[in-house]
């Protein structure tokens, strides 16, 4: 359904450091300059970009908005969250089971340095779910 997702940043270097770390934890390659002021990441047919807003105004996050990334394992979700905390992000939800989300979801939430809310989610095996 989605071709790409783009978010604004007020500090491209800080944004790149943050997303290199968190997306790297999910196996995404390092971001590349797409055009001046914009860094893009691509992985498994998905593309994610950060950029200085084209209107010259400050970047803001959307209230009510969340960008969800997929992880393969709980370990990746944990690593994603930990990487975000040490690269300028803040916790918006500790890693853990999310019984109200679809399936056997294990997820964690962060705010990026601009305040954008991001989530990473994986599906647990039944034995993992039962044991956790």
């Amino acid at each position: 359904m989605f071709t790409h997702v783009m978010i604004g940043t007020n500090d491209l270097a800080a944004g790149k450091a943050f997303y290199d770390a968190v997306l790297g934890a999910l196996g995404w390659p390092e971001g590349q300059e797409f055009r001046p002021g914009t860094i893009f990441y691509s992985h498994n047919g998905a593309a994610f970009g950060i950029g200085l807003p084209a209107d010259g105004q400050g970047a803001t996050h959307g209230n009510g908005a969340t960008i969800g990334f997929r992880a393969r394992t709980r370990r990746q979700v944990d690593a994603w969250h930990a990487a975000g905390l040490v690269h300028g992000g803040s916790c918006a939800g500790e890693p853990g089971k999310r019984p109200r989300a679809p399936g056997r979801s294990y997820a964690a939430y962060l705010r990026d340095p601009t305040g954008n809310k991001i989530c990473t989610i994986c599906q647990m095996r039944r034995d993992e779910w039962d044991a956790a």
Partner: protein
Amino acid sequence: MFSHQMVGSNDIARSKLFYDALFAALGGEPGVIDAKGRLVYAHNGGRFLVTLPINGEPATHANGGTIGFAMASPEQADAWHAAGVASGGTTCEDPPGIRQATEGRTLYLAYLRDPDGNKLCGLHRIVG
């Protein structure tokens, strides 16, 4: 890969009229309201949700933010854009059309803002 995308709304009924029209243009189903009152669309393996903010503050769009949706053809991108404009959205950026992108790629792009200002892009890859 993305698991899902969620945007904020200040009026779920208004959002449903808008996004139902967009997904209909893509051959998708109308949205379903879940137990938390969120509007949920499942289409081609992706999930898109629209929600009232859980902090009780008004929904706002992100400046610098865009969500890109896959279009099967230029004609579908045009229909998606027209459906959005007719259902409470507004056009933005250049009118729908061909763009020469980096690395020799040729794209057909259409841009909309939803009734709450969230920026959406309909993208069809012509070359690359």
